[in-house]
């Protein structure tokens, strides 16, 4: 039971991470390879609140969200200067620098990391089930936030920025401001996930947040389907569960993992559940009767 609880806790955390990157990438069109940096900042903030300032869990949790949101605004600045592949590299660099700071500054525990981070207990229950519920409540919140953003003017503006920055500016959208908004929300969500991660794992080391993790997060979003809500959720669960499921063939689990990702990208580039993926088209054919639009005679 605890084993599945722990898998579910981590799965929930990764779902949020994927959703957070999706806001940046799927909504605002900013590809980032530095999402693990925000994850790290959230985890460290929350852990430090508990360890150095003796604050209860929820204080650390909200502090993590606030601090990461703030740092996100700052670290989003490169996106205003550089684009596309340059941005990918710049965000990757941010990841390296953030990990380096945690590793080399003693206040953050340095290489010895932070340990003895308390796992909060709720309602006097002495197991991790309430924590699991909390994690998935947060997942629910992340889904709700993503969904709500996509419904508000902010979502519309982010979409506009993603599709065409010039056209977005021409309808009165401040492109830099909305890019930064996306960075803030994305970072804050990832920060909250970091807090949940820290308090569940009880110990943090800088190497937990190497840029490899950022790549994993990116893969989750792309494999699931960028820009949709269901995509990152399913992508995170699959990519998270895959190594666990492949344990039985443990000698080849990463060979298979890598191979499956390659195959996915070759045959389902829109992601498993992207809008134009085989699966979604099939589902739609099953459940929705789509009226055919006659483009021919549109004009």
């Amino acid at each position, binding site marked *: 039971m*605890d084993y599945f609880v722990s898998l579910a806790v*981590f799965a929930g955390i990764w779902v949020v991470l994927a959703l957070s990157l999706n806001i940046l990438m799927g909504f605002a069109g900013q590809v980032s390879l530095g999402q693990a940096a925000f994850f790290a900042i959230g985890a460290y903030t929350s852990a430090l609140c508990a360890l150095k300032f003796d604050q209860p869990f929820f204080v650390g949790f909200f502090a993590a969200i606030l601090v990461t949101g703030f740092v996100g605004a700052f670290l989003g600045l490169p996106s205003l200067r550089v684009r596309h592949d340059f941005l990918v590299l710049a965000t990757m660099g941010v990841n390296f620098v953030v990990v380096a700071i945690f590793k*080399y500054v003693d206040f953050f525990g340095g*290489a010895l990391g932070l*340990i*003895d981070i308390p796992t909060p207990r709720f309602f006097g229950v002495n197991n991790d089930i309430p924590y699991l519920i909390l994690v998935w409540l947060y997942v629910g919140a992340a889904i709700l936030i993503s969904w709500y953003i996509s419904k508000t003017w902010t979502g519309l503006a982010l979409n506009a920025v993603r599709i065409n920055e010039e056209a977005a500016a021409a309808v009165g959208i401040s492109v830099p401001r909305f890019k930064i908004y996306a960075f803030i929300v994305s970072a804050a969500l990832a920060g909250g996930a970091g807090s949940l991660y820290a308090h569940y794992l009880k110990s943090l080391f800088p190497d*937990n947040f190497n840029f490899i993790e950022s790549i994993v997060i990116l893969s989750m979003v792309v494999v699931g389907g960028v820009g949709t809500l269901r995509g990152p959720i399913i992508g995170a669960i699959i990519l998270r569960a895959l190594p666990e499921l*492949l344990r039985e063939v443990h000698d080849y689990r990463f060979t298979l993992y890598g191979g499956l990702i390659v195959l996915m990208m*070759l*045959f389902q580039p829109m992601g498993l559940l992207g809008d134009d993926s085989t699966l979604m088209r099939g589902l739609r054919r099953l459940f929705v009767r789509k009226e055919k639009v006659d483009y021919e005679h549109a004009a």
Partner: protein
Amino acid sequence: MKKFAMLAWLVALAVLVVSCAPAPTPVPPTKAPEPTKAPEPTKAPEATKPPSAGPIKIGFFSPLTGPTAADGQSAFNSAKLAVKLINDAGGINGAPLQLINYDDAGKPDQAASVARKLIESDKVVAAISGAYSGPTRAAAPVFQQAGMVMLSAYAIHPEITKVGDKIFRIGTLADVQGKVGAELVAKNLKAKKVAILTIDNDYGVSLTAGFKAHALKVGLEIIFEQKYSFGEKDFRPIIEKIKAANPDVVYATGYYAEASTLVSQAKDAGLKAQIVGQEGYDSPQFIKLAGANSEGVIITTDLNRDSKEAMTQKFLTEYKKAYNEDADMVGASAFDAVQVLAYAMKTGGTTTDGIIKALKGLKDFKDCATGPFLRYTADRELVRPVSSQIVKGGAFHLYQEFTDPAVTTP
């Protein structure tokens, strides 16, 4: 193209399904207890069996993939060897040991999940960490909370044993190693000026802290100190600086991969200072990779290959026989973890309390590769003599044994 795509999808799906399907019986990746593990025709009777009749399951986790896979492999191989030797000699009071190993990929969150899997699905009675500090530290609270003993084979993070009364360590605490290093540099090498190189992880930082604390007491002067990263391949700029500082000794923390690079580049650059390392260097890989450049390097370690102890020699020869390569320090520690745990279960039974009691009562234990183990402290750290070795003629040989309790007690 379309058909091809569909076909490839089917293949991928099939692979996934096959790989996901639960194996009929969870075959642990160890072959050691196979003879005693008779084919089970049905699963039902198992529940009614008295617990002593089945094999005693020990949980084990180590990195078998990722950048630290070599150490994980060593640890796992040695643990398998120990289990085989124990089972050949009749197991634990007649019951065979069964080792259940999972790959943690060097990641703490995987270790935390794996720990729970070991406890729940595999119902192990105790566990051994064959992993680095991060994963070990993440798994320790899980075992502590489940009321299960966990032995850390070679992870040196000082805080691991502080998790609780069920967590014990085999390897020498980094702090102690550091102190022994300083003692060696001051007393045996009669050096005055030291340059310190620290690998920027918990291992290096703890070692350096121990070294520096003791260096003050024995009157060493630290004239240079610098950090470097795990996996560093270019020490040349640092060596240039060390040359300029002209120390008598370079105390360089790290693992054999970095260390072999360091000593080779130091030799190339004409650095004259004596290089002193620690158990991270202690692998035949170090000598293999550094070749002649490793000659004369002195390290502090737990494994004394020149030891007259029967079990040390048995481990070294059996390991070579089983895996066709020379054993290393990481392996010896994992081997000893199994040995100590087996001893504890023999004397105290397979309950957690029994194991803890037996471990606490451990005295002058010699049935191990890196022994003798004198006793456990109240903080569940091992007290034992620390050896130092020098590379001579392409092999590690005893340089000096440190038994002074003032230095070797954690």
